[in-house]
């Protein structure tokens, strides 16, 4: 009896911590979203979200495009990695992870050196007499920034799942007449789906909520919802900010729920 009580006690610090610092803050976000500055219940902030419709749509569209590009770029790399020699795999893993240890801000910022009107690409083009292109300040630059920053989050889960695919399954597929493409379509793709899903999640969520990338690489009309939230909080408009955060959270959860319908996760509880 005593030991089982002790065992329960071991949970107490974390239980307390997660209640105070995970659950309560979310409740408070909801509280601010549904009250006005003097604490009275109001729906006006939530209902006013319509004003930000375009920003929401823009954020979602950018994030979806960035996620898709990331996926297309990562998949062959992850496959190639998973089928390489163990020593090559290690080196490649290291190379993929290394940029993640660099600060996101600086990684994003160094793109300006490349993309600016007098940046490296345009200097290079100018060498051949090509007029400078408008690269920075475009939606493309923002999406590029997202792809660049979050691509390791796509490669790693896909790679991890792929290394777990037993080689004999691939051989069985070949044995049963699949050439490279059929093998990919019928065996590798379905078996790597869990990795793809978690990769998509890990890229989509930060992309849709980013608030630095669009400020650095975007222009006057590429503002993202994360930027607005940051600005609202910086301007002390907690209620609007909270309402925006809440809606964004809901949008993300809905997106994730839709995606999770494609897989059954067997471990680690439900995602809300």
């Amino acid at each position, binding site marked *: 009896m005593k030991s089982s009580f002790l065992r329960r006690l071991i949970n107490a610090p974390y239980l307390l911590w997660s209640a105070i610092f995970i659950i309560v803050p979310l409740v408070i976000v909801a509280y601010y979203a549904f009250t006005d500055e003097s604490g009275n219940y109001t729906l006006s902030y939530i209902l006013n979200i319509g004003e930000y419709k375009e920003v929401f749509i823009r954020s979602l569209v950018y994030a979806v495009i960035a996620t898709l590009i990331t996926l297309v770029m990562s998949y062959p790399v992850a496959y190639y990695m998973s089928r390489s020699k163990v020593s090559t795999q290690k080196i490649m893993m290291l190379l993929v992870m*290394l940029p993640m240890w660099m600060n996101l801000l600086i990684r994003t910022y160094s793109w300006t050196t490349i993309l600016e009107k007098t940046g490296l690409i345009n200097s290079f083009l100018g060498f051949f007499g090509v007029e400078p292109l408008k690269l920075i*300040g475009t939606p493309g630059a923002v999406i590029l920034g997202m792809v660049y920053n979050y*691509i390791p989050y796509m490669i790693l889960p896909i790679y991890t799942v792929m290394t777990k695919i037993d080689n004999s399954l691939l051989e069985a597929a070949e044995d049963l007449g699949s050439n490279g493409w059929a093998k990919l379509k019928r065996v590798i793709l379905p078996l790597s789906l869990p990795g793809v899903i978690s990769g998509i999640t890990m890229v989509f969520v930060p992309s849709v909520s980013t608030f630095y990338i669009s400020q*650095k690489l975007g222009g006057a009309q590429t503002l993202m919802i994360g930027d607005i939230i940051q600005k609202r909080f*910086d301007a002390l408009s907690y209620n609007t900010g909270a309402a925006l955060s809440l809606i*964004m959270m809901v949008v993300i959860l809905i997106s994730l729920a839709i995606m999770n319908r494609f897989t059954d996760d067997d471990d680690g509880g439900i995602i809300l």
Partner: protein
Amino acid sequence: MKLFGKICSVLMFIFLYAPIAVMIFFSFNSSRSTYVFESFSVKWYGELFNSSATLNALKNTLILAVLSALIATILGTLAAVGIFNMRSKIGKSAFMTVTNIPMMNPDVVTGVSMMLLFVFIGRLIGAQQYLSFYTILIAHITFNLPYVILNVLPKLRQTDKNLVEAAQDLGCTPHSAFYKVVIPNISSGIVSGFIMAFTLSLDDFVISYFTNGTGFQTLPLLIYNQTTKKTVKPDIYALSSVIFFAILILLIIVNLIQARSEMKLKKNARSGFISKIAGKIGDWFDNKFETRAARLSVISGVLAVCIALSAFGINSLQNKQNDKYTDLFNNLSGVYSTDYAGTELNVFNWGEYISDGDEGTLDVIDAFEHLTGIDVNYDNFDSNESMYSKLKSGAVSYDVIIPSDYMIERMKNEDMLKKLDLSKISNFKYIDNKYKNLFYDENNEYTVAYNAGTVGLIYDTTLVDEEVDSWTIMWDEKYKDNILTFNNPRDCFAIAQFILGQSLNTVDKADWDAAADLLIEQNGILQGRVMDEVFNKMGGGNAAMAPYYAGDYYVMLESNPNLKFAYPKEGFNIFVDAFCVPNCVKNYEAALMFINFMCEPEVALANAEYICYTSPNTAVAENPDYSYYQDEILYPSDEATKKAQYFHDFDPEVRKYYESLWEKILIS
């Protein structure tokens, strides 16, 4: 298929490393630009180790990362064991769901929700300053926890359940069985959890942004400040390059150690020279410390010593240059007491708005610290509004702030400022009468002017070959995608208001509507809305024109000699930034001392040279050695400033109105 994968991988790595290569390359640039490479130089690396702000941020980051990772590891390990032992499936799954929240939630939401929690608690207990080192620490622990748990749980699952029973069978109590059997078996999970937490904390920006307290700046926050403010100099690239190589070396060492332990398993593996050496060192290590626990504790001990040493090194680096201010101090001996040595002074200033020791200039803060022994925590803001919100929210407290005129008016009206004891600021005598008793402080009780300035239009003559004398050129389709404008409402509205011939301080909503319409019209041809990013944009020739502060024109001119400055005929904004002491002051005497020090002729001159704004300090303006002595742009004649207007403060209703218009402009 294989070839395709190989090509993709090569392209991917080029993509991943191109910006990093560029960054490393430009860190060796001898000029201040991050766009145009001049010649090879390592001076930015030197600057790095001379910059007390950078070293401080590094120290703070390390302290925060170690502490938060350590606490998260302990809490998380306990939690993982608890979750693992839970019998009820529902309980388990509920726990895991809660654990997943900080991982699944966008960082912004996590940051914002933590901040709101602290605001809420702060308001409940009536605390004046609710953000501090502890709040950022709590936030970091919270987002680190899930990663520790998710690293430890799988190891627990892998552990044979019979092990604990075997230990108990052999005479262990449940307690000692846990330490003797379970902990060693999950130690690799604990260690990797710690490392992951450490790195996440090291790298976090978003959550830190919302939860950090006064004067506690981490590296990511420093980088954010530096890349959003004024000139981004290659020193930030130098800093990142150093970090990059440090991590690279660390990872290589870790991998070599791993390769060695694998080699042990494989008898006849071929091995290279380096791995042989690593093997030798490793063998020695293994022989010296036989148990796993001993090895782990030695490694963590070494790590702790390293961090402590670097923190120590940082401190001594900061203290080493005591003699460089002798000239300055000789003049000031006896004027400044050291009674407040050891106390802290929190200063909140605009970015790049003080001479900071960069490239041989006077490091004003450092000099003040040496002179008085007071520790200065120096923070930056990028707009009056953000400074105001920070103070208003009560999240932070400062002793000296430097707002602009209209904001001073508002803060004074809201009783947020404390009167200054001018008798203790003897250098007030140097302030030009023109900058005393202005509308925001009619009896001059609250302020000492620091800088004055005007707004004009800066343009690049290689892109604009007409004479510029009007704001309307900013609406010219010819310059589509080449026009920059302000990224703050009042400066931005002012331009439209001048064109429309309104007063900048109109309270007529129709006026505001008309100005907003004009600004929305401009949206389509703008390259972007910027604040201090303008330095790089205009300095690098990346845009044709931008309205900005007159003094900053000279800074841009250094990197782009084709720039010109014009005061448009419709009129322009004029402003004064002044020292104030907010009501939440904690070190009033030191604050006065600091303001007085800033008005010392030598200090003021250093600042004026560095900032290039109009100095209200007569000791500067009348000094013929001053670079901008009688400069027409910085010191325009009274005739020229006839059409200049100050911003005044509005009541909240007007403010809200134009802010909602501003939002509309931004998102349309």
